[in-house]
């Protein structure tokens, strides 16, 4: 059984990539490590989103609601009481799950665009709350936390890489498991899946919870990497868009594609940084192009090529 898993192409390819990536700190500059650290956290955001979208076929327009809840809860807790970091991080993940459930229960009852709208509204509410309760949250410009996990680039990089690998493994495993197949079926044809006796709402809620857990956890960890949190980094709709675009251009429903897409986006954004504001314009333009011309995403292109030969 283990042998079969290991021989499955996406698995051993991913393993090779991860091993290669973990050697980077030996010869790559601190700046690139820092960039990749952020990219890996975004990879987790996108993978968590893909689980929900790809498999429950629910477009979550507010992944940053969950991410923001995780990040800010962890950050505010640290600011107020300075408990050990892992307590803050756990609190962040818990807050994200709670928020996720509170959002999912009414949202999953709706169909079509309403689900997406509800998620977007959730983001707005969180954003408004953060801005209005500025004393607690640092408002629009941001929150500083007194502790960071480490100031060493290499350590931070390995933590992020390890976390992404772990999350990826869990999320990918879920997507291939019986639960994942049910979700996929319900996504393709809800009526038939329902007719076959599967309780869709329960399974979708489970997907939501898993997605929320990883989003919140990643958000909290990222706060303790940056030492700061702000609306612009964790909550703003544009961040959510980056998460979604990462998953879409990587190839939806592949989980692994989401990580690739996210890393690609962040790397592109940073590489174009010298261009200033034009950088966001170009990256959005590129993403738009991929969406219009290659709906299957990067991984979809690869798969398509392999199937064609």
């Amino acid at each position, binding site marked *: 059984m283990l042998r079969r898993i290991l021989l499955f192409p996406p698995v051993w390819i991913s393993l090779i990539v991860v091993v290669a990536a973990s050697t980077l700190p030996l010869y790559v*500059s601190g*700046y690139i490590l820092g960039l990749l650290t*952020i990219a890996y956290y975004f990879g987790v955001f996108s993978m968590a989103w893909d689980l929900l979208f790809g498999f429950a076929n629910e477009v979550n327009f507010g992944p940053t609601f969950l991410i923001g809840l995780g990040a800010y809860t962890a950050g505010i807790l640290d600011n107020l009481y300075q408990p050990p970091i892992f307590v803050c991080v756990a609190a962040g993940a818990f807050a994200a799950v709670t928020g996720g459930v509170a959002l999912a229960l009414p949202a999953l009852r709706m169909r079509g665009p309403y689900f997406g709208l509800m998620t977007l509204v959730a983001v707005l509410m969180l954003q408004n709350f953060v801005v209005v309760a500025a004393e607690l949250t640092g*408002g629009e*410009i941001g929150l500083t936390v007194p502790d960071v996990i480490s100031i060493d680039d290499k350590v931070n990089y390995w933590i992020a890489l390890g976390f992404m690998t772990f999350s990826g493994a869990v999320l990918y495993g879920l997507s291939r498991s019986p639960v994942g197949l049910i979700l996929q079926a319900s996504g393709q044809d809800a009526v038939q899946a329902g007719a076959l006796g599967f309780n869709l709402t329960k399974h979708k809620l489970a997907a939501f919870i898993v997605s929320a857990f990883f989003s919140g956890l990643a958000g909290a960890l990222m706060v303790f990497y940056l030492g700061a949190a702000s609306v*612009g*980094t964790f909550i703003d709709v544009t961040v959510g868009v980056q998460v979604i675009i990462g998953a879409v251009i990587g190839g939806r429903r592949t989980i692994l594609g989401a990580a690739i897409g996210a890393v690609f986006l962040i790397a592109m954004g940073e590489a174009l940084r010298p261009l200033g504001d034009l950088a966001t314009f170009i990256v959005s333009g590129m993403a738009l192009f991929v969406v219009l011309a290659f709906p299957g995403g990067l991984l979809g292109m690869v798969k398509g090529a392999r199937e064609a030969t």
Partner: protein
Amino acid sequence: MTRNKRVTLRAAGMLGASSIAAALAAGSFAWAQDQGPIKIGVIAEAQAVGSSIPLAAQLAADEINANGGVDGRKIEIVSYDNHSSSAESVRAFQRLVNEDHVDVVMASYITEVVLALEPWSARLKTVLVTPAAASDAVTANIAKDYERNKYTFQGYVISSALSQLVCDAAKDMLVDGLKMKTAVIMSEDAAWTTPLDAGYAECLPKIGLNVLDHIRFSPDTTDFTPIFNRIEGERPDVIITGLSHVGLQPTVQWKSQQVPIPMFGVSGQANNSTFWKDTNGAADGVLYQAVSGPDVAVTPKTLPFVEAFQKRFGNALSWCGYTAYDDVYVIADAIHRAGSTDSDKLVAALEKTDYVGTIGRIQFLPQGDPHVHGLKTGAGFITGLLLQWQNGKQINLWPPDLAKGKLTFPPFVKIGAAGN
């Protein structure tokens, strides 16, 4: 000011600047020759008011380099746009120190950004100078833990000092001059205004202005009508302001609504030379505090700097530019005196700074002072000015020896018996 006097002052200013530059160049070459350029990182908001920071820094660097650099070493400016975000600023700071290997970082006018960078300055043991952030919190953190936070220096007047400077001007101009008795404080809800408003609340009654109300609004407010209506209902003689992130919209709406009460205080954007145009003339009559103003020779260096900046970059000079320019010279001077770019030696050298810049005489408060590493303010050091927009021009009205005009107001403002 007569033309001769201005020419003389300008000559004196250039002489002063070039003699400092020459002194720097003439310093010992022992350690300087083969060590490559001195790198100063700049993190600022490329849009907004902060855009002057990297430009002014570059101007200063080029001037110093043209005069031989610092002990033979040239200054190189490496600058990043932080999009007004603390998190991006942190990333930029990490990049500057770890990848670009800068010796010193200058950052921002936004207090929240500087507060996010302060711990990183401590963690990475790199000198951080902010040319324009105002909150007392920055220096309070240094006082709380000097050994850790000593690498941060605040190159701008802190909020509590700003409020005192506003009160000083208000006493002369409003209380003595116009017999005003009441005021309402109107500020944006941001970190730098918390000590500012506290300062106002304390010093305004002391000069004879009774504070009727204290309004703090969110920095992303776009509709100021309810705020102005509320203030009007209370009928104060003046609105004392604390504005920086906003400026255009409240000013435009103040005029459009014809609020009969004048605005006086800190309004960061009002200092921009493009403010008149941006507000389509609504700025007429707005009174604002600044450490610098056009055509005001606070020191012999002020006007030559303004001329050089405008010649090279056009009209984008905001208040942060003056201090950014001065700070590059201050940093260069400290590196020269320390004979090194080692952070601890730099800190010691910076603490001994005594430099006449464009805004006044710059000295940093010493260890032991509650505002350690802040600027020394008051007569003989930095006093600030009080200017008013009149007919498209920024006219300085205070202190009296630097005043260039008289107080006037647009027709809809009613002085004395304020209100409808």
